[in-house]
């Protein structure tokens, strides 16, 4: 039965991706250096994009890899390396309050799992796959959305564009003022940004 084979392969792939995501998350929790943690987090994001593809949202999986694993994690790794003091691994991983911080989320998890378990979750057979041919009309073509009488997602889309622009300007302003305030020779920090200082 091809359907059974499909179901089996999908389940096996889901199990592998879920296991990879959970192991990488545990690695993030226990990692010694932030760069190790960043690599583990990239592993989580790649696994989750695979799960998106399995769930029928390949477009979202591609965006996940492009934006999260590509752009955001590149930014994180870049900043870690810019600020990379050798003492990063000398920051203790945990302190004596960490045991509380590690245990309280488990209570949240127990409550959420209990609530999920009590709720039947039927898959609707008419649910659509979220590939690009389906996502683009839903986002921009209002006539394709029966029962949706709002103004589509144009306004939200434009607002997020403006928000990203504002965020970039804010980041430049924050980092620039800091560069000027550390113009005095301050050791490794000033050297790491020697090229930037030349512009002033």
């Amino acid at each position, binding site marked *: 039965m091809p359907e059974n084979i499909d179901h089996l392969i999908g389940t096996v792939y889901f199990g592998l991706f879920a296991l990879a995501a959970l192991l990488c998350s545990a690695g993030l929790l226990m990692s010694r250096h932030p760069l190790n943690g960043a690599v583990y987090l990239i592993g989580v994001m790649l696994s989750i994009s695979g799960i998106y593809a399995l769930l029928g949202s390949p477009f979202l999986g591609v965006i996940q890899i492009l*934006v999260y694993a590509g752009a955001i994690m590149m930014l994180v790794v870049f900043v870690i390396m810019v600020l990379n003091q050798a003492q990063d691994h000398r920051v203790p991983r945990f302190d004596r309050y960490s045991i509380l*911080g590690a245990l309280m989320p488990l209570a949240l998890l127990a409550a959420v799992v209990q609530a999920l378990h009590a709720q039947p979750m039927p898959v609707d057979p008419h649910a659509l796959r979220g590939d690009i041919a389906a996502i683009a009309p839903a986002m921009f073509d209002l006539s394709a959305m029966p029962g949706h009488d709002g103004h589509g997602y144009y306004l939200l889309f434009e607002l997020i564009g403006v928000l990203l622009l504002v965020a970039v300007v804010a980041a430049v302003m924050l980092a620039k003022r800091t560069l000027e305030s550390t113009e005095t020779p301050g050791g490794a920090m000033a050297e790491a940004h020697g090229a930037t200082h030349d512009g002033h």
Partner: protein
Amino acid sequence: MTAIDPFHVQLLAALLFTLGLMVVLARRNIFLVLMGVELMLNAVNLSFVGFSQQLPGAQSLWGQLTPLFTIAIAAAEACVGLAMVICITRGKDTVDSDAFADMKE
């Protein structure tokens, strides 16, 4: 559509969210705190996509559109968050979150 048990998807999302919250609350390195927030956002996106399978027809696309906007917001959050980390780290020359308890003292 591959029939993956929606409960398993939600269970995975809840586990990832819990691990992200643990990273935020337990770790002392501010880079890892930021990465824990990113992990929590990812878990919520996964939950959205999992639940969207239960809606009929075109409605099921809405749950798959929301993560697109969430990812864009997360990009802005990471941008400003990292700039703030640069800002406060330069003054103290450490990434230990305990060093930034000035308002307490």
